[in-house]
């Protein structure tokens, strides 16, 4: 009876206590103000599917935001970023592991000033039985596979056809080409 009571009380208290997932993390610092290294086991999920029941094959294959349903406490962590420093999110990298249980390592952002927690930059993904974790750095290669028409030198984000079209129409500031012209004259 004592054990049952202790278990019941622990279940109540668990969400109240902030858990530390930094143990064993080998995440590389990005020198972010509110970064916290975190390594944890989780099921890779399509966030829209998880929340609303609107599910698609392969978790959308990179077209939908991906979450990490943490085994230890059932918390849904939003994967915002992969490990590349080139404006790539985590959706393409994580969709490769759709509905699998993996161990991820990376940086949690926990900022009380901005009232945010449970958002994550994933750096590595370890599948059960694998010798070593895979780097979460495939986003730009997968982008290139999706955009053969944009093949060329330079960063992917300078070659993205949709981005180029919007900038050509609205300018870098998004306020129209005349505003861009004025800005360039004043700043260069």
């Amino acid at each position, binding site marked *: *009876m004592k054990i*049952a*009571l202790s278990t*019941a*009380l622990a*279940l*109540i208290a*668990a*969400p109240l206590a902030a858990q530390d997932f930094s143990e064993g993390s080998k995440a590389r610092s*990005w020198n*972010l*103000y*509110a970064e916290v290294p975190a390594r944890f086991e989780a099921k890779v999920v399509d*966030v*829209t599917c*998880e*929340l*609303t*029941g609107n599910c*698609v094959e392969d978790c*959308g294959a*990179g*077209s*939908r*935001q991906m979450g990490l349903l943490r085994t230890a*406490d*059932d918390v*849904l962590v*939003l994967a*915002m*970023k992969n490990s590349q420093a*080139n*404006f*790539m*999110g985590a959706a*393409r990298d994580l969709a490769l592991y759709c509905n699998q249980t993996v161990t991820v390592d990376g940086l949690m*952002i926990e*900022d009380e000033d*901005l009232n*945010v*927690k*449970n*958002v994550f*930059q994933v750096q590595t993904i370890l599948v059960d039985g694998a010798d070593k974790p895979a780097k979460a750095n495939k*986003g730009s290669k997968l*982008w290139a596979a999706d955009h053969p028409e944009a093949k060329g030198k330079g960063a992917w*984000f300078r070659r*993205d056809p*949709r*981005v180029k079209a*919007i*900038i050509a129409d609205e300018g*870098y*500031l*998004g*306020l129209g080409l005349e*505003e*861009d012209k004025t*800005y360039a004259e004043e700043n*260069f």
Partner: protein
Amino acid sequence: MRAFIAAALLLAPMSVHAADGTRVQVKGEIIDTWCYYSGVMGGPDAVVGSAHHTCALWCSAGGIPVGLLAEDGTVYMVLKVGADDASAGGDTALKLAAHTVEADGMLYERDGLNYLIVSEVTTDSDIVNRTHEDYGTIPAFAFPDPNK
């Protein structure tokens, strides 16, 4: 005692998965959530509006979550806009980068985050937040030097 344990187990939220949505109408700016939360480019006031328009396009196209920053500071993670459910790199959200909009949709709250399924963008005011006047462009290389 059995009744107490049963009640305690009922109170424990561990088995809750599906969240119930709530119909909401919100007004705010479509932002790049990674730069906003991580501080990687600077403070939150600098990574919104016209200063950050090009970077917001890059991040949205790269699949970084798009958010709606409401006037009260609440951030809603946008998972769908109208018929476009491509929440990572979708066309509709991309075109709204840095725009101030009014949206009608369903709100799902889960583990401290607000997720928004936008049924309809009822008003699109384009970019009204002229942050480049205070910050230039963030990052600076977002606006290429026309002399080079």
